[in-house]
């Protein structure tokens, strides 16, 4: 038996497909920029790709690299939330709202009750768990499509957050108070990581923790009975039920864990004090939606998601560096959205790759037989 070549492996094909999505996404984004103003399009798309490398000083590069990482941690959590639910056959578009709820609870616990950071995180996880479970309950017992209930809960979550956080906002602006000056104990500890990024005080525990959680999710899905049951429910709900698995409670638990992960993402960003919540927000933050992009771009593999989350955040932050006299920073949202759209074609790309490989093998098999026959003829 011949050893499988690298081209046949599922992981390699996923990687190739993701790279195709990235290249095509950037190319289409470049075309949009060309249509807006051909003169600066090249510089603009390079500014998006370069992100922190737009600075020439090493210290500033390190600091801004840190800033990108600060926002990668919450994005990774949202991506994991989407990925985890998708493994069970559920599309958790509600991650965006669960992220908002996590932000809401952690900010409120910090500012109103001055709780330490770890308690804020636990509260965010608990509330996210419940918020996600609502979608699960509606799906399992009332057959409500999780995409539609997720969207409804996104908007409900946004309005609730605006209402609750108005209690802890600055009196003269729509933004919430600074954590660092009002409740220093609630700010995530840096563990000395700030020193690595030219004293970027926002680089915190959240980044290593996010990676640890990713590995935990990977183990949970691949190496435990619980993970196996969840995936079985995803492949075929009825077969799982027939095999004696509690498919209803599996659906609820999955979406609850998804909710907890996304809410933790919200806590990871807002407990660093890097961003403040705007209490007059009229749109759900894009973090949860970018999580969808990262999850699919990472080939629905937890480890792949670490890299894809970084990439998505890299270009999202990079959008801020485009020439603002002609273009707007939303160009990176556009590229992320294009990448999600292209991810829809991944199945087709893999099919083409598999067909090519099969054809090649068929051909080499035929030529191999011809050679054998010739040799046989000589005897």
């Amino acid at each position, binding site marked *: 038996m011949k050893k499988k070549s690298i081209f046949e492996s599922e992981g390699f094909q996923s990687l190739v497909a993701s790279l195709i999505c990235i290249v095509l996404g950037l190319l289409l984004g470049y075309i949009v920029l060309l249509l807006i103003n051909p003169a600066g399009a090249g510089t603009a798309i390079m500014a998006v790709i370069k992100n922190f490398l737009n600075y020439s000083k090493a210290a500033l590069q390190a600091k801004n690299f840190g800033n990108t990482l600060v926002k990668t941690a919450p994005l990774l959590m949202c991506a994991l939330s989407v990925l985890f639910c998708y493994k069970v056959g559920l599309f958790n578009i509600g991650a965006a709202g669960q992220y908002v709820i996590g932000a809401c609870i952690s900010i409120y616990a910090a500012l109103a009750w001055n709780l330490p950071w770890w308690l804020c995180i636990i509260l965010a996880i608990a509330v996210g768990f419940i918020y996600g479970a609502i979608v699960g309950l*509606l799906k399992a017992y009332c057959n409500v499509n999780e*995409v539609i209930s997720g969207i409804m809960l996104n908007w409900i979550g946004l309005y609730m957050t605006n209402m609750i956080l108005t209690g802890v906002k600055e009196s003269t602006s729509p933004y919430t108070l600074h954590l660092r000056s009002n409740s220093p104990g609630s700010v995530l500890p840096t563990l000395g990581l700030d020193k690595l990024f030219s004293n970027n005080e926002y680089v915190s525990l959240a980044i290593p923790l996010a990676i640890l959680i990713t590995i935990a999710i990977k183990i949970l899905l691949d190496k435990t009975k619980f993970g196996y049951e969840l995936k079985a429910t995803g492949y075929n709900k009825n077969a799982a039920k027939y095999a004696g698995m509690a498919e209803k409670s599996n659906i609820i638990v999955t979406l609850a864990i998804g909710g907890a992960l996304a809410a933790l993402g919200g806590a990871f960003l807002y407990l660093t004090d890097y961003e403040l919540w705007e209490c007059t927000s009229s749109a759900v933050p894009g973090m949860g939606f970018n999580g969808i992009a990262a999850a699919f771009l990472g080939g629905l593999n937890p480890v792949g998601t670490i890299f894809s989350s970084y990439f998505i955040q890299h270009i999202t932050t990079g959008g801020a560096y485009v020439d603002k006299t002609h273009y*707007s920073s939303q160009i990176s949202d556009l590229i992320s959205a294009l990448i999600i759209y292209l991810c829809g074609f991944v199945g087709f790309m893999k099919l083409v790759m598999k067909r090519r490989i099969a054809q090649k093998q068929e051909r080499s098999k035929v030529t191999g037989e011809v050679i054998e026959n010739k040799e046989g003829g000589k005897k």
Partner: protein
Amino acid sequence: MLLLLQYTLIFASVLLLVALGGCYSEHSGVINLGLEGIMVIGALGGALVMRFLPATMNGFLVVLLTLLGAVGFGDLYSALLAVACINFKADQTIVGTALNILGTALATVLVKAINMSINPDDVSSTIQYVGAKRNFVASIGSFQFNWFMVIAVIALIVAYVVLYKTKFGLRLMACGEHPQAAASVGINVYKMRWAGVLISGVFGSLGGISYILAGVSEWKFENGVAGFGFLALAVMIFGQWKPTRIALAALLFGLFRALSNVYIGIGFLAALNIPSTVYNMLPYIISLLVLALTSKNSKAPKAEGIPYDPGMR
């Protein structure tokens, strides 16, 4: 009270148009989760036409061109869903979601670019259409009548006749119930599904342009359409994929959406002193409750969401 009626009718018209769009697409077997994005792009097309038409133009012509602009943009956009989901068998949920995010991002980038090219200091994503808007409304006493109410009623009648009384409609629905059986009697399933998605694009864009013309005379495209496309999908599910029931559901949802606009003017509601945020949340909460109560006995087309595979039995 007249104001409440006015807003209920206009929001119900928007929901009815979009939900009927979803209805065509789902009956052909394709779940159109991208309706929200199609609404945004349709609204963009219409708003751009209104923005750049000369103010002295004949009113009827303005209305006609605006509708054409909206449908042109929105329908082209819905083709993105069709090509991915029908020809490339892509996951309909992923593609629909991508179209929603892409719609808002694309509209924001384009509107900002246009605004900046006219006035370098204007970095907003807002388009104004005060003058052109007048052509869409007519005052009857204190009641502001909106032409989209008529369009929605016509769309309802057309949808009923097309779906239940024509060869095309019955074939379309066959493709959503059992595409292989439909193919066995010579129906081209791919063509039918394309038709379903493109028709939903037409209605989605009409809904989009009517939504941004409902109350205001300028629109900030960064905000998209605030989940209205999904509310319309909830209306469609509540209406059990049947046009007449969808119309009733749209009226109910329209009422709750209208409340957030006019509750201050209604004596006893204003006296209750409930924060305005609660009224903003109301349509979404109601739709969750309604979905919880009605989804159990869903009459969804059987083959919706499943890419067509001619070899499957």
